[in-house]
């Protein structure tokens, strides 16, 4: 069952995005089945399946749903489609190729918590995707699967899309809720948590799930928890979409059973990444986009099965499984500097350690990259990074510290190379006239 496509059903049924094709292939049968049983029974099945959140945290989805107090009359499901992590591009493919399965999964979640509305929050750049999704929602409304009196059950629930406007922080669930309410996307102080009265969307109890997570739900309802747990490992059931990018021959999204493949298979097998361009050696892996700890591509790492628990053993995380590959020519200090620029730009500015920390990390890394670094700079940025971790309202502060702390720990020679007379040359960024760098910095366009 290792190569089963639960999410990427377009591999088996090419036009599955079309409403008629989706319905003809068993589409919306899972929603009918869910509506024939009590909401609490739906939650029990998803709990028993041990579906874990695919957005990065890996929190058990059924448990999250069970936090919603049933006594409240107004409740929401919010679909997190703000996919903005460097190296992550899976949710877009799901939205483009299998949108009805997401809509169905969101409606099953909505039934399970007895929600009154579903909001799909898409990053603003998914402009075309959102307009297509609107059409698919209309089809589901016309079919009686969404909207008033769903399938004659007496329960009504509409699905709406909402576009962000370019802010990575809105992928953080409480910032996403702020943004949906028409405010600046800044994380909230918790408690109250989104599941509780006062903590969710418009202060109502709210479940927030990632696109990929919800797209698993119809399969689980149709086939049952045992069938789902037969795929993957005990602690990581089901399949996962692995976003493979960077220096591989065949970058792209690959669905595989959790624990069914190792880094080596994903990166080198012809069925997946197909190896490193130019036959170069692999040097490093970012397993969870820019935000996870970077690890050296040793034999031990390459032979690690891709699961939540096995990545933890490597002192890294599976996260959203956005795997960025770097070959032997890449200077990891350059990687740390690049990722730090991202976090400096994306820090919302609410918490001082993150706002000031990312600013100063970027400044010092610029100094190191320009050959002006001092031998004490490594200790300086290590200190700044460690004073960010654990001191912010959301995980962005922790994420921004990771590239620094783990580059220093795992690739100390790359830093040393910049702090001697013959500094390493960046492999992918050619030297440019200074005026261009200055104009780019002044534009603040990114």
């Amino acid at each position, binding site marked *: 069952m290792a190569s089963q496509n639960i999410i990427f059903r377009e591999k088996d049924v090419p036009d599955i995005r079309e409403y008629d094709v989706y319905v003809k292939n068993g589409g919306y049968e899972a929603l009918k089945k869910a509506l024939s049983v009590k909401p609490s029974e739906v939650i029990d099945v998803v709990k028993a399946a041990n579906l874990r959140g695919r957005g990065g945290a890996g929190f058990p989805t059924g448990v999250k749903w069970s936090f919603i107090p049933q006594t409240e009359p107004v409740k929401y499901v919010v679909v997190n489609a703000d996919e*903005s992590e460097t190296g992550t591009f899976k949710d877009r493919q799901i939205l483009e190729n299998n949108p009805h399965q997401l809509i169905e999964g969101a409606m099953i979640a909505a039934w399970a918590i007895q929600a009154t509305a579903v909001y799909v929050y898409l990053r*603003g750049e998914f402009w075309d995707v959102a307009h297509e999704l609107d059409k698919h929602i209309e089809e589901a409304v016309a079919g009686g699967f969404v909207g008033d009196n769903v399938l004659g059950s007496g329960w009504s629930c509409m699905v709406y899309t909402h*576009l962000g406007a370019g802010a990575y922080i809105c992928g953080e669930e409480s910032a996403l809720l702020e943004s949906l309410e028409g*405010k600046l996307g800044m994380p909230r102080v918790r408690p109250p948590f989104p599941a509780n009265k006062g903590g969710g969307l*418009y202060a109502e109890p709210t479940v927030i799930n990632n696109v990929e997570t919800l797209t698993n739900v119809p399969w689980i309802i149709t086939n049952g928890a045992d069938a789902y747990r037969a795929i993957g490992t005990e602690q990581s059931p089901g399949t996962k979409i692995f*976003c493979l990018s960077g220096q591989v021959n065949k970058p792209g999204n690959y669905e595989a059973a959790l624990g069914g493949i190792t880094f080596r298979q994903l990166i080198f097998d012809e069925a997946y990444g197909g190896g490193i361009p130019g036959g170069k050696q692999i040097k490093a892996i970012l397993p969870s986009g820019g935000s996870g700890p970077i690890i050296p591509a040793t034999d031990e790492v390459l032979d690690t099965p891709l699961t939540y628990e096995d990545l933890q053993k490597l002192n890294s995380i599976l996260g959203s499984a956005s795997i960025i590959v770097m070959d032997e020519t890449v200077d990891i200090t350059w*990687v740390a500097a690049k990722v730090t620029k*991202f976090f400096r730009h994306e820090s919302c500015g609410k918490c001082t350690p993150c706002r000031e920390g990312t600013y100063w990390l970027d400044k010092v890394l610029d100094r190191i990259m320009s050959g002006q670094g001092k031998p004490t700079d490594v200790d300086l940025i290590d200190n700044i990074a460690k004073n960010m971790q654990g001191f912010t309202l959301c995980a962005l502060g922790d994420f921004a510290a990771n590239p620094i702390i783990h580059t220093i720990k795992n690739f100390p020679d790359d830093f040393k190379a910049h702090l001697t007379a013959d500094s390493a040359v960046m492999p992918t960024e050619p030297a440019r006239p200074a005026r261009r760098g200055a104009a780019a910095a002044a534009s603040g366009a990114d």
Partner: protein
Amino acid sequence: MLAEKYAERIDKIFAKYPTKRSAVMPLLFIAQEEYGWITPESLVEVAELCDLDPTQVRSITGFYTMYSEKPKGKYWLQVCTDLACALRGADEFHHQLLDTLGIEDGETTEDGLFTVEHVMCLAACDKAPMLQCNFHFHENLDLDKVNALIAQWRAEANAAPVNG
């Protein structure tokens, strides 16, 4: 103004949410679609429609990068130069594009047609180098392909002159 011209769309937007404030971002996109950028007058109009103070709306346009607070070229080209794209040559591609158009990052060509900016991750890492033109994606690019696109956009612009 916007309220009359886009009455139906605006009504549909308000109907989605229990509060007027939630409509501020979608309405700003309508303003930008109409004028090419968020003009001070349109900002005030959006504020009135949403029962907000213009300062609150101004904070939104400042925080979110997809709202332009100044005029841009007819074709607003945003090139992703983030890590995953950069590992596949996006920095060189960005520089080639700037050289082709004879501008620096963040600038607009003299004919008012093209603005080029580098941006953070656009969730197209496996199809780098790529860019977004007025929010539409163009992927797996190189210098030849982008030159062809530029020629196509120039022809398009000549057929339908730039709106004041």
